[in-house]
């Protein structure tokens, strides 16, 4: 560390200079059906993240770790993070599991960012993991929907397909939107994910096929729903005064915004907007000094196609009620519209290993901004990216904005 970095660190600790935070490495497993168990999957994601760091790095340099997981199926519910870090060369450091449903690792990323911002740590691991496909079909169904307001929603027969179906039908009623718009989203995300080697479902689908899928929760069909995936993801953050030890090509976290809302859909003032997304993104845009117009690519939480439609509205890419037209006109298609929505294929195609999804989105943005994704799916001139990670049907939300440059 040179004298200027050292001085910045000391001023940061005194609260006189706010520390900037960069992503110096990021990696993940392929999402899908894994033969590996939790330890093996996490080790693979961590190994990929470590090896993505340009200069010398050793896991022992990490100060702290935050790992998101729902512990789906009840697997390793206790001390999840300590077990995983033990198997990735991160022995002895403070670690913990972060649980905020499907937004678990979005919040792990935020916690890691805050740990560095506070001056308490210089190098922090944020990651996530979920193993979903080693359960019997019946046991899996027990676990889907555990993050709703179970006392009320579960007793009304709802899991998340049902909850999002209620939102979709209401959106169609209130606005100029229809199931065809959701089909456009499904087709786009399958097209984006087709060339992503880490995607769970690498298969393009036609409009005709996607619109005639098996009905899961009317009006949502199979092609409106993300798969249940195994997977792990890991990003390594560093304080500005140590970044250059590891890379000359960092991706900066320009801001982090987060919010929560009522768990139950019926308790919210609107069922066609996610207020947690609106609040989290407002805070993130404000802190970064940016607007939605500055975003080149966004990894949004499309657990169901209606969730992406609503996210384009709540994140400000379209006006409220215009998300259907945004999808219909292909404005989120890679290198065709003003912003590429879900260049990875999103949860719909890349997959949704609950606790791994948030930091998995950060892995995609890191690679896109550094130009290291497959050439065929590179977003042109990508300078600023956004991740949007939602827990439950909108109860929690973390939004992060990343840039090639630091905040001015």
């Amino acid at each position, binding site marked *: 560390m040179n004298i200027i970095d050292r001085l910045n660190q000391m001023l940061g600790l005194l609260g006189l200079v706010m520390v900037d935070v960069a992503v110096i490495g990021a990696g993940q497993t392929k999402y899908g059906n894994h033969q590996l168990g939790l330890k093996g999957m996490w080790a693979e994601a961590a190994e990929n993240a470590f090896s993505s760091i340009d200069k010398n790095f050793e896991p022992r340099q990490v100060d702290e770790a935050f790992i998101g997981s729902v512990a789906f199926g*009840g697997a390793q519910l206790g001390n999840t993070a300590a077990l995983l870090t033990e198997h990735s060369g991160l022995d002895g450091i403070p670690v913990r599991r972060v649980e905020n449903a499907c937004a678990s690792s979005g919040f792990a990323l935020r916690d890691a960012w805050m740990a560095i911002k506070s001056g308490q740590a210089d190098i922090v691991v944020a990651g996530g993991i979920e193993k979903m496909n080693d359960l019997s079909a*019946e*046991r899996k*169904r*027990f*676990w*889907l*929907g*555990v993050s*709703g307001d*179970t*006392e*009320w*929603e*579960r*007793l*009304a*027969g*709802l*899991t998340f*397909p*049902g909850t999002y*179906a*209620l*939102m979709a*039908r*209401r959106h169609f*009623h209130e606005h100029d939107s229809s199931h065809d718009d959701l089909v456009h989203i499904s087709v786009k995300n399958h097209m984006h994910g087709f060339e992503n080697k880490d995607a769970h479902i690498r298969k393009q689908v036609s409009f005709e096929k996607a619109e005639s899928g*098996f*009905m*899961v*929760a*009317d*009006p*949502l069909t199979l092609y409106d729903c993300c798969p249940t995936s195994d997977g792990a993801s890991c990003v390594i953050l560093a304080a500005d005064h140590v970044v250059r030890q590891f890379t000359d090509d960092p991706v900066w976290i320009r801001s982090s915004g987060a919010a929560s809302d009522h768990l*139950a*859909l*019926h*308790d919210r003032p609107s*069922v066609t907007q996610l207020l947690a997304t609106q609040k989290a993104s407002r805070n993130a845009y404000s802190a970064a000094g940016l607007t939605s117009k500055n975003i080149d690519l966004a990894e949004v939480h499309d657990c169901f196609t209606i969730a992406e439609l609503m996210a384009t509205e709540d994140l400000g890419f379209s006006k409220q009620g215009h998300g259907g037209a945004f999808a219909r006109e292909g404005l989120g298609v890679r290198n065709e519209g003003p912003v590429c929505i879900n260049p990875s294929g999103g949860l719909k195609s890349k997959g949704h290993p609950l606790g791994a999804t948030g930091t998995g989105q950060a892995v995609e943005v890191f690679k896109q901004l550094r130009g290291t994704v497959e050439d065929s799916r590179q977003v042109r001139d990508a300078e600023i990216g956004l991740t949007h990670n939602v827990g439950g049907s909108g109860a929690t939300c973390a939004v992060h904005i990343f840039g090639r440059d630091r905040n001015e």
Partner: protein
Amino acid sequence: MSVGRVQPAPFIFSGGIEMNEQSHWKGYLVVENLDSLYIQSTYIHEDKIVYGPDSDSTTMAIAGIQFMQNKGHHIASIHLTESVDARTLFLATGVDSTALNEDLEFEEIEWDLLTGEEATLVIAKSNTESYDFEAPQGVEIIDADFYNDMEAAWKTEQEAHHVSQGAYVSSSQYFEGAEARLSLAAQGVGDRMIWPPRQLDANGRRIPSESYSLDPEAQVESWTKLSAAGAPSEFSLRAPILGGIQTLLVQFKQGPRGVFLVSDDVDYSPKIGDTVSFAVRRIYAQEGMMRYGLKANPEY
């Protein structure tokens, strides 16, 4: 006195003669008199009156008492038979019983609830000496396979070892909101009604407990039908028999919204803007305990 298949004869009531008046009420057939009520399921299977797919003596007892309350009868307490879940009945109707309240004197209870051998009940003043009701019209034969499959599914669900994992609603969690769930009891804050109940407000003060009731009618804001494959595991035995399960998002006149299953015994194609009302029905059973709640129906 026996309550089973009632005789299709003119009715005679001790203390006076009155004509029976028959009507449909919350999915059941009722025959009312001044101080007594006969209520039965609408379904017949193998020449017996049987309960519908999500009904039992508890749900029908609640419907019967609510009918009497609706007619202006004050029923503070009632003698129950063992087949009726006294706690659920109390939470839904406010009617006490010795099964629930040990301090209640047997003699001070003015009402009886008698269950028949079939899916029939009588609610009457305790001093009534005899009952005779004209058999109501409007029963239908239930599909035998459907009936047998549902009965088998409920039997399995009610076994003590039938346990959910994951989205588990424990008995204490279930009962914490049961009064609001079964009777639409709401909290009042200023001119605003809060339902389902909440704990503390933004000032950290406890919100007054439920002392109001929402009007038992609401408007459909959205709806979905989950395929059998997409239904939560608590419904996994019955959803395939029913062809999926249907949930409504509704808004009450006083403002609050809620989500409710549609009763299993109606064939209903919802539309946004429909008005629905509610009746207590079985939701699911776990670890030997039946969970009850309100289900929606456009016809009640």
